[in-house]
C-alpha cells in the first residue's frame, strides 16, 4: 500500500498532518513532526505533545494523515486505524533517533520528547 515514492515523505523533512475526530464528532487537525514507515501496511507517529489527538484516538481510532514529499511537494493522504502504542523497544528507539535528527535539523533540540510510538494500520492511500 505504501510505495517507495512515499518513503521520502516520511523522513520528517517536511512535517505531516493528522486529523482526528472526538466522540462528539468535532474534527481536530495537528502538525506532526514524524510519520514513520514501518512496512507497506503500517506507519507510526510520534506521540510528543498532542494530548487532544491522543484522546481522540482513544475514543475513535480512525485517522487521516497527510504526508508531503519535500522536493516535489507531492502529497499523499492516508486513512489509517490506530493499532497500539509502544514506549520501548526497537521501533521506539528508532523513532527517538529520527526525532532527534529532525529536532536538530529545525533547531528544536530539547523541545521534542517521544512519549510513545503510536502504530497504525494503513487502510487506504490517495495521491493528492
Amino acid at each position, binding site marked *: 500500500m505504501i510505495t517507495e515514492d512515499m518513503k521520502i515523505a516520511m523522513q520528517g523533512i517536511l512535517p505531516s498532518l493528522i486529523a482526528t475526530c472526538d466522540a462528539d464528532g468535532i474534527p481536530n487537525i495537528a502538525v506532526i*513532526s514524524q510519520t514513520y514507515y514501518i512496512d507497506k501496511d503500517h506507519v507510526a507517529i510520534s506521540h510528543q505533545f498532542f494530548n*487532544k489527538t491522543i484522546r481522540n484516538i482513544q475514543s475513535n481510532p480512525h485517522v487521516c494523515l497527510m504526508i508531503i514529499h519535500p522536493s516535489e511537494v507531492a502529497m499523499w493522504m492516508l486513512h489509517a486505524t490506530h493499532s497500539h502504542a509502544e514506549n520501548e523497544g526497537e521501533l521506539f528507539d528508532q523513532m527517538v533517533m529520527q526525532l532527534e535528527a529532525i529536532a536538530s535539523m529545525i533547531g528544536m533540540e530539547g523541545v521534542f520528547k517521544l512519549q510513545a510510538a503510536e502504530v497504525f494500520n494503513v487502510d487506504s492511500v490517495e495521491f493528492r
Partner: protein
Amino acid sequence: MLLPNQLKQFLLEPRFYWMATRNQDFICEIHRVLGVQVAGTDILRIFIYQGTASRTKENLLANKLIAFSVTSGFTFESYQIKGKLLEIRPVNEEEEVLMKNYIVEMDKMLVALGYSVSGVLTETLYTPAWSVEFSIEQVFDQTPKVGTGKLLTSV
C-alpha cells in the same frame, strides 16, 4: 473578538494552511488550503481546489464543522482554528488572484527553506476553486512546546 490581532497579522504572511472535516461516520479528511482572508469579525474565508475537494465539500454541507491549521515554515509557530461553515461558493476573480499570489509566495518560501527547487509549486492546480467562509468558534495554540494545544479563545 476571537481572532487576536497578532493572529490576524500572522495569517497575512505565506504559511502552511490545512483544513480537516469529517463525514457521518466520523472519518476525517484533510485538504490543503491555498489562501486565507479575514472576512469579518471572527469570520475567515479560505480557498481550496475543487478537483480534490469533493468529499471535503460533502462533509462541510452535511455538518458544517471545520478545523483549520496554520503553521509558519520558519518558526513552526502554529494555530488551530475551529469553526462552522457559513457559505461555500466558487471563488471570484479577486480570490483567484489571491490564490495565485499565495502559491508564488509559498514557492519562494519553500526555496528559502531549502525544501524544493524554484517553480515546483507554481504548477499547483488551483482553479476551479471553492471559497469556504466559516465562523470562528475556538482558537488553539499549537506551536511545538510543552503544554501546547492550549485554548486561546472561544465563543
